[in-house]
């Protein structure tokens, strides 16, 4: 095993993660949670390997402290928050196999206007940590580079009243196998907003776990997936309302054509006594063509009674009447389909607060739609 002392983690922690990964092995389709994303099969003989990927900072706004996770003597804030999450298998893998990554800290009360931009690059395992202290505010733009295989684990900690908007656009990545786990903890009145735009790859799995740990904490997740060919995209979320008076929404839209497979698994857990929690989930998919597939699994796990939880999921096709209407007004079929698909995806895109990013996602979608429709 490489890099035991890397990442500044106590050896025991590292070993613990390694043991978890060893016991469970690379997930495959008989593992309930990975039913629609057979990672073991996609990786083949090569397995997860022990390669080292990196976190490249593309733009670092002033005021943000960073720490190279490969370095020694991590500061207190890294020691306190880093290396907590490994409930899921691939996070245990990255925690035990990665040798580097970057940690970022936005100090108390600092409201940063320009986005922090970074991307995970290279093949292999890598970790990241982002801490927003009480009252801090930031936009994170996460780029995604294409690589044969990467397994990235990102931990995010939001202090009281902290606000983070996270936008991640992952391009059409051909034969790449990409796995990322984002684990978020939110304190009182903190807010996490995230949007994941996915154009698919051979296997692409985005796992987001959000724990609402203080009253008034909020999480708003949205995403779009536009897939063609043999692309696959799996967004699996788990929002946990640990205390009462917390609020979460999810809105995910998927369009799959060709032989593509769009997957959404959204679990919402409301813990015992978390009264006053409010959660709303909506997942919709449109299939184009004979061979595309959509798999949706919105799950509710409720242990408190004074809560408002609802979810909806729907799979369908483009409304024939709307299509005809556009054509009757002179719009050629391909263009009409594109318009309707765009309209379908729009409300998820509208969830992005940052104007530049919103426009960017819209443009990417338009380009991809022209190719599909």
């Amino acid at each position: 095993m490489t890099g035991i002392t890397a990442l500044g983690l106590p050896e025991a922690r590292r070993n613990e993660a390694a043991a978890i990964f060893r016991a469970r092995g690379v997930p495959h389709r008989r593992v309930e949670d990975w039913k629609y994303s057979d990672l073991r099969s996609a990786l083949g003989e090569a397995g997860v390997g022990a390669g080292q990927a990196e976190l490249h900072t593309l733009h670092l706004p002033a005021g943000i402290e960073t720490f190279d996770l490969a370095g020694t003597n991590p500061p207190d804030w890294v020691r306190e928050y880093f290396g907590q999450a490994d409930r899921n298998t691939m996070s245990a893998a990255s925690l035990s196999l990665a040798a580097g990554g970057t940690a970022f800290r936005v100090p108390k009360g600092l409201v940063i206007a320009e986005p922090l931009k970074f991307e995970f690059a290279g093949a292999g395992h890598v970790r990241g940590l982002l801490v927003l202290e009480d009252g801090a505010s930031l936009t994170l733009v996460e780029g995604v580079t294409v690589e044969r295989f990467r397994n990235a684990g990102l931990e995010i900690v939001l202090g009281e009243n902290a606000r983070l908007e996270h936008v991640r656009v992952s391009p059409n990545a051909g034969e790449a196998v990409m796995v990322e786990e984002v684990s978020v903890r939110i304190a009182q009145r903190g807010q996490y907003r995230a949007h994941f735009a996915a154009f698919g790859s051979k296997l692409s799995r985005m796992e987001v776990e959000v724990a609402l740990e203080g009253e008034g904490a909020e999480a708003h997740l949205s995403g779009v997936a536009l897939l063609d060919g043999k692309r696959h995209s799996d967004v699996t979320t788990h929002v946990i309302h640990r205390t009462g008076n917390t609020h979460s929404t999810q809105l995910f839209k998927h369009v799959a054509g060709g032989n593509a497979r769009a997957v959404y698994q959204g679990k919402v857990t409301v813990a015992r006594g978390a009264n006053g929690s409010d959660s709303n989930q909506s997942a919709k998919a449109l299939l184009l063509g004979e061979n595309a597939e959509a798999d949706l699994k919105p799950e509710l796990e409720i242990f408190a009674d004074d809560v408002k939880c609802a979810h909806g999921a729907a799979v369908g096709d483009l409304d024939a009447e709307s299509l005809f209407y556009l054509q009757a007004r002179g719009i050629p079929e391909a263009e009409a389909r594109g318009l309707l698909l765009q309209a379908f995806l729009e409300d998820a895109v509208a969830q992005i607060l940052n104007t530049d990013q919103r426009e960017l996602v819209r443009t990417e979608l338009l380009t991809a739609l022209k190719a599909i429709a």
Partner: protein
Amino acid sequence: MSIAAETKSQVAEIGEKYKYGFVTDIEMDMAPKGLSEDTVRFISAKKGEPEWMLEWRLGAFRRWLTMKEPDWARVHYPKIDYQNSYYYAAPKNTPLKQSLDEVDPKLLETYKKLGIPLHEQMALAGVAVDAVFDSVSVATTFKDKLNEAGVIFCPISEAIRDYPDLVKQYLGTVVPVTDNFFATLNSAVFSDGTFVYVPKGVRCPMELSTYFRINASETGQFERTLIIADEGSFVSYLEGCTAPKRDENQLHAAVVELVTLDNAEIKYSTVQNWYPGDENGLGGIFNFVTKRGDCRGKKSKISWTQVETGSAITWKYPSCILRGDESVGEFYSIAIANNYQQADTGTKMIHLGANTRSRIISKGISAGKAQNTYRGLVSVYGKAKNARNYTQCDSLLIGGDCGAHTVPYIESRNSTARIEHEATTSKIAEDQLFYCLQRGIPQDEAVSLIVNGFCREVLQQLPMEFAVEAQKLVGISLEGSVG
């Protein structure tokens, strides 16, 4: 030493020599404890089954030995010791009572609360037939009507002997022997159950109920039911009853297979009130059932309606395979879990044919420290053009110590299919309760009223007699759950 050998040696001690190692001189009511090939042979022999049936059972048994018990449901139960059970017991020859006066008054009170008609109370309580007013004539008219229509309705053991071709043609074709652990076990040791065949174009003249079956009162552990609706026919079948079912047998693993041919329809309703164990969850029944309907014919329809309460652990997913074009599958369910009960129930709608439709309405009610899970699968295969599904799952939580979980799987491989799923979670609002109290409705009755309102859409699917009893059952199951 294996069970069979042990018995053999015991028997040898008594100084007798017997074919299967069991005592046959004295009329034996039970197979010895444990499960082996000999047990299977014993059961088959007791039932007087033909060779092909025995072979079928043995095949299932050998397969079962290679299988592992499933563990993925959200239910937790103590390990079942399969060797520590009796797999065959003849119907009890308990002396019949002469009147209701001899029946446990508490039992009678429950029957009264449930509004069970008098003659049915007597039958349930084991009162001798000739002491029951009208029941003989009722049973006779019933049989005559069915014979006239050509409907076959008899215990499955009878069907195996009298209609072997029909049984051979359909048994195990909807739930294959290898389908799952409990179904395989059932295939090896099933002891009783219902067989129904409705001929072409016949609308069965009355609702068929297990109550009217010939050896009605005792429900076997491993029931096997097979219902076939031939082209253009219709039958409504009622299983179970609202009376609390107490049983020493902990494990119930039934298999129900339904087949509809072109334009035929089967309506299958279940109202079960298993003994849930005491308030601490001890001694309850484990209810693992495999129920599946195969809509083989075009425009055929299978509808499952269930009201389940009681068993300590329930694991059942009545399903429909929508094979025939334009076939329809429906699932209406009320699942109540109180105290320490655990329910994991739901349905699977498999859309294979074109223009198929399915509808799922699930109402789950949790109270006490119970855990109630809905697990559903709507799967649309590539050739299922224009498939349509609508699912509505609602959970009602009573009190802060219980849990309600919804796990829907939605899989679509056809671009023209439309699937819609909605789920909500709610509680009985304090102001709703107060409103009822202020209008004079006492607490438990108010809870019953509100919960029955919550379940209305499902209750409306039940045949009338069941619906009234089911409403009362809902109320009783939740007595004392609020406050």
